[in-house]
């Protein structure tokens, strides 16, 4: 598998042994953690845009502050489609805490004071 943790994109190989997973091909500890997560519980950062109350033409980019289990991405996106935020909003402000019990918060990607 290709590591997605940085632009290097190391080719990772995971072998299973009685002691657990063994990762090779990685250049850093992040790669090892990624490969093991891919085998056990694949996670991804999620990004999308949400509506802004009272501003039809302004959309706020949002991001999860930590990776979310892959199988929950669809449900999280669905929830965000109906979410509306209020202005002003500041970069890194928490919009939804612990979304769908994933342990991740949805935070604002940017500061918007007045509608664009």
């Amino acid at each position, binding site marked *: *598998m*290709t*590591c*997605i*943790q*940085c*632009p*290097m*994109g190391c*080719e990772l190989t995971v072998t299973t042994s009685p002691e657990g997973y063994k990762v090779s091909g990685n*250049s850093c500890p992040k790669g090892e953690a990624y490969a093991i997560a891919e085998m056990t519980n694949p996670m*991804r*950062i999620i*990004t*999308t*845009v949400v*509506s802004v109350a009272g501003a039809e*033409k302004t*959309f706020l*980019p949002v*991001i999860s502050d930590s990776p979310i289990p*892959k199988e929950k991405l669809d449900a999280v*996106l669905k929830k965000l489609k109906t979410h509306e935020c209020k202005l002003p909003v500041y*970069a*890194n402000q928490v919009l939804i805490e612990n979304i769908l019990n994933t342990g991740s918060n949805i935070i604002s*990607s*940017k*500061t918007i004071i007045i509608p*664009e």
Partner: protein
Amino acid sequence: MKEIKVDLLIIGAGPAGLAAAIHGKKLGINDVLIVERNNEAGGILQQCIHDGFGLQRFKETLSGPQYVQKQIDEAEKLDVKIMLNTMVVDMTKDREVFVISSESGLTKITATAVILAMGCRERSRMQAHIMGSRPRGVLTAGTVQRYINKEGLIPGEKAVILGSGDIGLIMARRMTLEDVKVEGVYEIMNRPGGLQRNISQCLDDYNIPLHLSTTVTEIHGKYAVEGVTVQQVDDDYKPIPNTQRYIPCDLLVLSVGLIPENEISLKADVPLSEQTNGPIIDNNFMTMVPGIFAAGNVVSVFDLTDNVSRTGEIAASGAFEFIKNGNILPIVCKIEAGKDVTGALPIQYRSGNSDKPLEIFCRVKKVLKNAVLTVSQGDRILFEKKYRILRPQEMLNIEVKPFDCGTENIVISVCGEEEGGK
């Protein structure tokens, strides 16, 4: 006409221009002004809502808006002035810049130093040479990105993507998440154009097929796109007969490369390089016109935002010295792309820099394993580094320690094993 004078004028408030402004202020340049034609600072990153930016610079993975927000906040703290909704209409080689805005009309800005940071533009259908009629529904990946992420509009129901550049791959995932069916990504080359990690997280994660050595040879539909014909190509990119396949779709997304945007540079007679399509620059990122510097994707397409911002800082350092000293030392030699290297920057080396490290940006021409990159001048090796793997998609950024430069060309070359064991 209103007239203003500034020490440093920067054209474009994207990740290069903002980095240049911040660095210039930190070095002690008094008046730093950015002119920006958009209604907000941040450049294209404001619509790049996905994560993966800033790993080198900020040591964390940020979305595009998060990355530039950090720069915008810092610029504000340092009292960098930004004129929004303001477009440059003309510029002379004596650094007189004419700008226009609805608010103030025409203004003449005279600057001691100028940094060009206009970024780049996407190749369009015209440059991809596709046959067929001219219906609506043929859009560049960046336009689709703008529609979805900034305007909240969905431009189609079923899409074909031509080109596997990073923006195309990112948009394959983004469209899928917005319930646009992405039929596949077609790439004329025999290898992907974008980073391997984007193939993995944008295509493989969503079972979107990537067809290499295949291109779109015809667009169908009179008023709106009804479908496209895809066809395999040989090693010379010529379509192979009888390999045509018709795909019904209402959207063709083009991700076929970027071109530095240099219309303003040309107005000021800034000479461009045929290799990079950007200004010919020296080791301080100054163009061949004294006092006019360039940074970011206007120089060459860097791909990584971290590199774009880094060049902004190099240009700002150069501009700072130019403002302080005003004198220009002669060019002593050129910097040359040697074996298996392309797009080497800077292009020339100016004397009087022996106390400073030399930062070089370049790419390899093909995938090379267990490679050694060497920077040399004559018999002298100035820099050497080993890499497990080098790919053409990844711009390299290396730093050569300060050295006494001779008059022979500085050559960057790489030796490595080709894929397939050669």
